């Protein structure tokens, strides 16, 4: 890929992936709510309800607390910006995203973490008790989840000899035996628990709670209103879609576009949507039958994820 045509193609690929994540993220949340409502015997809001909520939020008044500093306004922007960056360079619809050589898995994790930290700082900024409580809880969970994720990435990158995400997916396509290996399953199991923790799903956090004392993520965004709240909700749903997209592409890479061309990209997008929706439905079904864990039990769950990842890393080292 070189010259002006290459640049245009790269921009189009990145734009397609960003658009898919930005529209698909809220729709994924809508699908998960619908599945949940269906199992509970309700009709539930339509699948595009989150998009409707976003449209309304962006048309509302921008309102910030008097005590808030610039950190409060920057938090949601950083959250969305990091999600957009990752959506552009990750192997979601194609194994050759623009700037794919920079998409190191470790770097992606830290960019994602940047968004979480920005939101936690923004929640502290207003000085409300719930904001501080939510931040402290979110950072505790983050501090426990990140090591598990890092070791899980290590376990996946040892047999592949690279931690570059597009390369990991390409190697999975070329050598399916690497995906069917024990270390990959252990690492992806750990990754799944980390996704549930990072995106605030059950059993770590209840996304539909109204009780301030049980909130983790929701407590951080209580002070946000209008367009700021819209950005937070958009960013959170994009992160969920991104993490699930990466998970399914590491587990089942087939369908992803492995060569340039519009047709392959369209097929890749379709495959991505299909795989992520199936994963979302599975998680929503799991959530219906799960209660939120007590906060003091969460370290056990995340330590379990860490152990899975460590065992995976050792397996990878011993086998090879």
């Amino acid at each position, binding site marked *: 890929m070189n010259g002006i045509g290459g640049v245009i193609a790269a921009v189009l690929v990145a734009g397609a992936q960003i658009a898919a994540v930005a529209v698909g993220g809220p729709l994924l949340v809508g699908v998960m709510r619908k599945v949940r409502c269906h199992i509970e015997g309700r*009709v539930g809001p339509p699948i595009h*309800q989150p998009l409707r909520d976003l449209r*309304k939020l962006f048309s509302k008044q921008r*309102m910030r607390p008097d005590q808030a500093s610039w950190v409060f306004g920057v938090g949601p922007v950083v959250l969305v910006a990091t999600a957009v960056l990752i959506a552009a360079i990750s192997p979601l619809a194609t194994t050759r995203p623009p700037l794919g050589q920079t998409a190191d898995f470790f770097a992606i994790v830290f960019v994602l973490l940047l968004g979480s930290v920005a939101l936690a700082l923004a929640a502290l900024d207003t000085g409300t008790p719930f904001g501080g409580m939510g931040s402290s809880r979110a950072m505790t969970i983050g501090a426990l989840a990140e090591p598990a994720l890092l070791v899980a990435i290590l376990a996946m990158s040892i047999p592949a000899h690279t931690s570059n995400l597009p390369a990991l997916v390409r190697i999975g396509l070329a050598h399916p035996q690497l995906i069917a290996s024990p270390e990959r399953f252990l690492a992806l199991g750990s990754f799944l628990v980390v996704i549930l923790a990072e995106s605030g799903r059950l059993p770590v956090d209840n996304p539909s709670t109204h009780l301030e004392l049980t909130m983790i993520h929701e407590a951080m965004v*209580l002070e*946000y209103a209008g367009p700021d709240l819209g950005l937070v909700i958009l960013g959170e749903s994009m992160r969920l879609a991104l993490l699930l997209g990466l998970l399914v592409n590491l587990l089942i890479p087939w369908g992803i576009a492995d060569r340039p061309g519009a047709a392959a990209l369209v097929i890749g997008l379709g495959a991505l949507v299909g795989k992520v929706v199936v994963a979302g439905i599975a998680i929503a079904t799991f959530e219906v039958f799960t209660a939120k864990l007590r906060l003091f039990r969460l370290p056990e769950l995340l330590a379990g994820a860490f152990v899975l990842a460590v065992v995976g890393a050792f397996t990878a080292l011993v086998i090879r």
Partner: protein
Amino acid sequence: MTIRSILQAIVHPRTVTEDLGPPSQVAADVPRLAGSLQLRHVDAGSCNGCELEITSTFGPVYDAERFGARLVASPRHADALLVTGPVTKNMVGPLVKTFEAMPEPRMVIALGDCARDCGVFRGGYGVEGPVGDVLPVDLQVPGCPPNPEAIVRALRGLTGR
């Protein structure tokens, strides 16, 4: 209902939500909130009769969420303030503060007879007055308590679904 159908409902429960038919009259002055209405509920001194009906409104049978209405945890997230009960002297301040914390465009819904005209609590020594004395009320839902159908009908008028 035969025994077989009851057993079937136990083993495999289906959707219990009632079909409420097409939407009622759409309120004219809420075009920008079409299809999405976040509510912040404030109990200004209610006997909790209205709260029971609100709980039921968002339960599986009436399921107001399917029309785009949702209860939220913060006034900053809300489009409409759902006030129940007569406004007691101690709740005047918190109620006004809650309203002021909501971003524009914002609405106030007075739910139940007490919120509209103090109901049986009229003249009580701790009662300041109906919600209309403290905040500009956009919508009233009569009843003591209003049944969930009436609440859903009112909310559908706002969401337009």
